[in-house]
């Protein structure tokens, strides 16, 4: 019973702190070295030079991640002309890492895919719960974050991207 009380207090405190802060200031994201699926290397800040980036964490065994990817690829193509890019950070460990490229190719996805087999990027950005979306402004500040996926949430994701891109104009 004591444990339930402790948990309740922590949750309630979090509620009080965060309630009403639907879009709190999520700070600036650090630069991250990225190894892409095609073997090339880049950094997050280099990608941001082109425009805003929507970063998402996923794995080949994560069902909701795969449900969401179709929509993210659509947004990547739809808003790419405005400099926007989707960057998918894969979390497969070496045990199943070999299958990642085959999966992305068979789906015909165009977005960028980075690999993070030791989950260091996800730890740095608190993206362990998948899918985990981070919408990043060109100045590297985090505009919006979202964890999990339920069908229909892709519309909210699109709204956030559009809102960010329109604020740039």
């Amino acid at each position, binding site marked *: 019973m004591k444990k339930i009380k402790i*948990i309740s207090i*922590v949750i309630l405190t979090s509620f009080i702190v965060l309630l009403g802060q639907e879009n709190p200031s999520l700070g600036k994201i650090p630069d991250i070295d990225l190894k892409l699926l095609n*073997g090339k290397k880049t950094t997050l800040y280099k990608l941001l030079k082109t425009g805003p980036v929507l970063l998402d964490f996923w794995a080949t065994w994560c069902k909701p991640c795969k449900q969401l990817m*179709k929509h993210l690829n659509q947004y990547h193509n739809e808003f790419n002309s405005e400099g926007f890019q989707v960057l998918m950070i894969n979390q497969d460990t*070496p045990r*199943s890492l*070999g299958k990642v490229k085959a999966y992305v190719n068979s789906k015909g996805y165009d977005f960028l895919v980075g690999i993070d087999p030791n989950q260091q990027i996800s730890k740095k950005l*608190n993206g362990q*719960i998948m899918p985990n979306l981070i919408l990043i402004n060109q100045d590297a500040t985090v505009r919006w974050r979202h964890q999990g996926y339920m069908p229909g949430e892709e519309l909210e994701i699109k709204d956030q991207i559009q809102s960010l891109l329109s604020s740039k104009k």
Partner: protein
Amino acid sequence: MNKKFLAIVTFAFLNAEENPFSVFDLDFWNYNAGIVMNFGDSYDDFTYMENRMDLNFFKNNFSAWLQYEYSDPPELGFPIKDLRKYRIEYSSGPWTLKFGDVYEVWGRGLVLAQLDDQSIDFDNSSRGYLINYQADNISVTQLSGKTINAQLGSDLRYPEFEFTHNIDATNINFDAYPFSYGVSFLQSNELHQLKPLGVMDTVDINHRLHGAYLSWYGSNMDIFAEYVDKQSKTRTYQTNFSGQEIVTLSPLKKGSAFYFNSNFYSGNWSLFFEYKKYSFDRLSPVDTDYIINNYGNRIDYQVMPILYREQNHSFLGRAAHQTNANDERGFQVELSGGLPNGFQIVSQYSHLSRNDTWTSVSPIKWDRKEVSGLLPTENFSALPYKEFYTELNGYIFDNKLQFRTAFGTNKEVPKVNRYFEGYSNSISEVWQYTDSLWYGDDWFYLDSQLVSIDTINNQIETILYQSSKSFTIPIDFTYAMNNGYSLGFGFAYQERYKNNIKRGNAGGFYNYADSAWVLNDINNPDSFINETTSNYPDQIPFQINRMISISVGKASKWALTLNYDWTNVQEIVTVDPRYNPLEALVYGDIKYFTGERNRKVSPSFTKNKWVALEFSYNISSTQRISFLYGSIQGGLVCSNGICRILQPFNDGLKLSYSAIF
């Protein structure tokens, strides 16, 4: 703890630009935080409470990661109420320095892959330092540290063994696109515990690994290959006459591993192929299960490709193969491609086996013979595993209905207790005594001669093994409506067979005098038996599992999911301790609610059934809370190729909360 704090503060001060005390102001930093809280309490006392908070700080070239954990008891593992993980990183030009808990992956993990997987209580990070120099196309990494790996024993939740490793490792990587190649060296001094915690009985082992890998990226294909050579030595300490301590290293085990992966692309079709040959410790089929006494083989830093499919359905996960990273070879092929209308098809086949076939020349002695060529064998004594999986998924009805239908089947020999096929000679000799004398009350023989030798040559077959096979059909549908609501339906059907098979004309008795297996019927060598018995209780021939999942949700707000899992027989029988109202509701048992039913005793119709209802609510886009009430079947849970037996959760409440700040 004070040292850690001092180190963090020192780095922070070094980074402060003007006022050194500004480092204590959160505005000085860019930071993020995450909280995960899990609580569970079941009627049969499966109680846990896990709370973890991650904090990341960034400023200029400096970053820090802290993870605080308050778990007492956790779902799996030791209780902890302390700073669980920390790391400080500093980058300047081509140099990167990390101090604290280091996670590195080199190649595909044949030498080093450090991961943290809480679902199976696996964490092989090293606490120490890492130095990396990266310039142009070359990257040199050196790390040093200590790792303590906990291992479960007979208890399903609390580890009973600890293996401590002190490692030093170096990796040099060259990138010359489209090529990338590297070499790695790792040395680990392991203190391997032989008895459960609290008893000091350990062995000191030195492991040395040398590895190399190569990858090539082309427009229509890519290739990756890695090789590692490993040798382990036991370290013993002796004192000479002068009182000096002398350390002696004695060879223990040698091994190697090879892994190859290639992908071919044509349009949006991909053909994936991978091959492995892991050979660190080739033990007989009866010796391989117990890792405590089988030391000097693969170490926990080696987390290598498994070559069977990572499943995301619990039924397929329960039937998954338990990989043997010490002694296994095989291949996996997967064809995946896009069909018209956005459909995708995936077909996968995998075949694995040990590197040797084995013959039990006696109940305690096994002889091995290496499988010829590179491919796996189907011989039972090499514990073969075969898997076939095919899946069709896609969207229909204007992308409103998302579906996935699959068929998965596998076949395995998980255990072999006896496997002998061959000839057995039993010799019968007749002697004649040629010289004797009468002494006292009896004859004493002084000399004798062999009159005849009669050799009986029988073809013997005596085989005892366990065979398992299963097929699973999971189907999922999710329908998204225009108003943001969605409906989900999932169904899975599975049949699992687990049989003990006894075959042959010899039944398992062994004559040590003749060094021969004893025939079932000495007068009739052709008297063969072929017995197949089910491994399930009451000789129920096979297990039928079914699962129904129904969910309804509102996008970005909430989701309600009902899971109904039932089977005809449990491999390890568990008793449902209580009849709960959710079960009564699902079974439509009016008597429960009118007070006519005894709630403390579960009625027979609830046997082998588990019902759970989960409600999750998104407080905001970065905060989520979920409640689960009901029961969850225990059993095998596999995560990324590592499996563990999960304790059943009966008639309880689970609460989870996660937030990102």
